[in-house]
């Protein structure tokens, strides 16, 4: 949260052509704007050969205490990055304490048996390193990452192990943390994309813990040091974690160093996740969050989709790529390049250990809310009802496979790919097989995948905008529920 406002501050200094983000009275508007068709001349020289690359593999080892270690040597620059994935996160938050996994992660840096909060900050900053921890909502993972220059590897690893193994969650720091967190909760409510996300996850997941996207003022007020100690004690165990390292290190010297700082981490049995059953998808509807001073409508439309290890994952990656995966996909070309309704329109999927959502999102000026809803629904129907032209599918498959080359550049991106394989228990040759899996997707499979995962009977549409201007328009798209910006249902 602290970073969010600065990020916005930076964004305003440079305006770009497009940005990939997660997240009305059409007829007269479209009359006044002549149609601006996308045109393909096909004169540019394209190298037809797809550059085949193989993702370099990490070497793996397990410490006696059960900690899995992945070492990926990348020697371009003298940097190093460590990523620790604890396999328990926000999905295990107690119902009455949403945010507990996040609070625990946030508080790791606020004091250990060896260091005060200020000392940790000083020791990290003095060597220009980074050390952060988080546990995002909708995921069952807590992440600790530490990085810096390779000359400081020993110090970085020591600091990281100190905050992971020995946090004390001091009461005075917890009290300060709560005040900052309560302010952040207020700030979030002024952000339309937060309001959209909050309502969307709530209507998709009901009583399942993925419905949470933020702590509540009550959970912030009520959380105690004992709660943090308990979460840390139960789940921060070496046998419940994977530690990856990527950078200018070599296997033979980094493993002993990791052993030195994480070898003494005591293991103990960790109970399996206790996730409740998923709610049955609700019938399609529209949820309006009335934000009276909005000049745009934020639209977020989607449904429950699939797990990361689902065999339909790759077909849905291709299907989603065609529909809304970037600035060459149908949603962007239609809503922005042809109709001029928005700065961007995309679709995304968030597969996880539970069936994470698939959704489309865009932000449009209030006046074209109707036109934009119509365009989105038309695109959803088109990809479900019509065969994708062979050429378009071929381009999409080519795009996905070719972009592999770009992922070779960043050590941390590569490392994350391999942590994903371990965390979701995918086959060890997963990334070697991936291009073949992408190549196997046929027009028929795209259609079937769209029909299965772009579920119009259960599509939940959340719109954040000026209620007086868009409420009547939205009624055309399904039964409507209305909320205020405090999250309270008003209609």
């Amino acid at each position, binding site marked *: *949260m602290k970073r969010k406002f*600065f990020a916005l*501050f*930076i964004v*305003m200094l*440079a*305006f*770009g*052509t*497009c940005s990939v983000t997660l997240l009305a009275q059409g007829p007269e508007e479209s009359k006044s*704007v*002549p149609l*601006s068709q996308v045109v393909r001349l096909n*004169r*540019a*020289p*394209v*190298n037809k050969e797809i*550059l085949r*690359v193989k993702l370099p593999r990490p070497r793996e080892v397990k410490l006696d205490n059960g900690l899995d270690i992945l070492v990926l040597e*990348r020697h*371009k*620059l003298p*940097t190093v990055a460590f990523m620790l994935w604890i396999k328990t996160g926000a999905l295990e938050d107690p119902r009455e304490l949403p945010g507990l996994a996040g609070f625990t992660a946030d508080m790791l840096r606020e004091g250990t048996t060896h260091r005060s909060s*200020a000392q940790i*900050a000083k020791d990290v*900053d*003095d060597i*220009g*390193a980074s050390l952060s921890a988080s546990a995002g909502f909708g995921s069952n993972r807590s992440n600790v990452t530490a990085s810096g*220059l390779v*000359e400081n590897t020993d110090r970085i690893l020591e600091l990281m192990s100190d905050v992971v193994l020995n946090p004390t969650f001091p009461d005075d720091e917890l009290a300060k943390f709560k005040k*900052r967190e309560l*302010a*952040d*909760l207020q*700030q979030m*409510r*002024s952000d339309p994309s937060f309001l959209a996300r909050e309502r969307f996850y709530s209507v998709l997941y009901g009583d399942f813990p993925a419905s949470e996207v933020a702590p*509540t003022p009550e959970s912030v007020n009520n959380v105690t040091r004992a709660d943090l100690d308990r979460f840390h004690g139960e789940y921060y165990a070496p046998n419940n974690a994977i530690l990856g390292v990527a950078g200018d290190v070599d296997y033979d010297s980094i493993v002993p160093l990791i052993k030195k700082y994480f070898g003494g981490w005591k293991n103990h049995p960790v109970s399996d996740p206790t996730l409740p059953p998923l709610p049955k998808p609700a019938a399609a509807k529209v949820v309006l969050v009335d934000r009276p*001073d909005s000049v*745009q409508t934020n639209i977020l439309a989607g449904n429950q989709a699939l797990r990361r290890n689902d065999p339909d994952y790759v077909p849905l990656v291709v299907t989603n790529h065609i529909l809304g995966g970037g600035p*060459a*996909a149908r949603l962007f070309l239609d809503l922005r*390049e042809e*109709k*001029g*309704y928005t*700065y961007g329109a995309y679709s995304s999927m968030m597969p996880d250990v539970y069936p994470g959502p698939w959704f489309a999102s865009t*932000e449009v*000026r209030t006046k074209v809310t109707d036109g934009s809803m119509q365009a989105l629904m038309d695109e959803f129907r088109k990809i479900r009802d019509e065969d994708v032209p062979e050429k378009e599918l071929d381009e*999409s498959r080519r795009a996905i496979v*070719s*972009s592999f*080359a*770009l992922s*070779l*550049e960043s050590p941390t991106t590569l490392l994350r790919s391999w942590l994903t394989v371990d965390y979701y228990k995918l086959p060890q040759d997963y990334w070697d097989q991936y291009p073949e899996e992408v190549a196997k997707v046929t027009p028929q499979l795209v259609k079937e995948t769209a029909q299965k995962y772009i579920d119009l009977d259960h599509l939940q549409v959340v719109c954040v905008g000026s209620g007086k201007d868009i409420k009547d328009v939205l009624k055309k798209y399904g039964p409507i529920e209305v909320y205020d910006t*405090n*999250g309270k249902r008003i209609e």
Partner: protein
Amino acid sequence: MKRYRAGTLLLASVLLLAQALAAAELRVPHLNFTDQRLGNGLRVIIAPDHTAPVFAISVTYNVGSHSERPGRTGFAHLFEHMMFQGSKNVGKGEHMILIENNGGDMNGTTNEDRTNYFEMLPKNQLDLALFLESDRMRSLAVNLANLNNQRNAVQEERRLGIDNQPYGKAYLEIDNLAYDNFAYKHSVIGSMADLNAATVSDVQDFFRIYYAPNNAVLTLVGDLDPAEALESVKKYFGDIPSQPAPPRPDLTEPEHYGQRRETMMDPLARLPMVLMAFHTPPGNTADNYALQVLASILSTGESSRLYQHLVKEKQLATSVEVQADARTGDSLFYLLAMPRPGVKPEEVEQAIEDEIAAIKKDGVTDAEMEKARAQFRRQQIQERQSDLFTAIRIGEYAVKFNDPDLINTIFDKFNAVTAAQVKEVAEKYLIPPQQAVVIDLPAQQETTAASR
């Protein structure tokens, strides 16, 4: 005597060696590049990097919002969008499709001082990138339908980033209040009225005046052979005619005589924000580097002064950020703070003033200087992981400061700043006549708690 002298020499050379080693350690790895101009004036910079089978290209044009005239604010950026709307041999939107479908990334960005266009692709697609960039530099195609369409897209970009966000207008107002010279006074995104006023002939004029090879720098970084790559660049760009040198705006800021301040009511905000800015010298000057060190000491990392004092100890703010920008002309030193609920903005403003006063009085410590250097050096090295980031930065250094080698030397300039200079620049520039303050207040005090 002789013996003694030999000993002294030996000791001296050991010391020199140790110093040389220490100095060598405190550097960033050197990046080799070639730097030449084609006959038409296009500056071409090529830096090979064979660690991944990819390359990045950045074409940086020496034009930004500072070249806009009154009545056409936002035009440089609107124009940037038009560069994706087709040229003689590339259809509307086809550029994005071609890059995406071949596994690449692309974008264009505009700020006050420059406009850039960039792509990142697998190494076997160099011809594609050069073709696309040269075709639009040579033969941009413009029509009213495409202009209207992108005018709409840009207006949505403004709504998304400014008009529909808390604090959005305050971010624009601080520059408006701080500057008298129109060049930097108006926003990069522009006003809705000015965006509506732009015509097809404005687009054509802007293209002719600014989008010439002699007003651009092409940077290639990645898995390529510099000699072969240069031949390809010549093939695609060599015959694009040069144009008369474009006019350069006068960036001189008139003298200021007192603090400026403004309070804004923000219907979208729930908590107030304090934003201030001080005028500083342009980027790539000794004083500007010293101000960047100062910004780092004030707010980089959780051990920084403002975080420790305002957020942690006094608990007046929930976040603080300081940024020293480095424009080609008169620049700004920004400070931003979010007061904690219940804390008056004046208290936060006073606390920031107290921190500035403390630096003017006692300066900064050697330990803080060392920390700032370590953080800056790490950041410089980290950013070099990305060929694209490297290409963008080289292009920017070349266009803004005529010095692409800053990619190698900027750390040395930062490293050379002394604690005494940091104190001096605080005394010299962080003073009321150079200052603008914007307080953004929630227009309505809403009830706080979220219920669900």
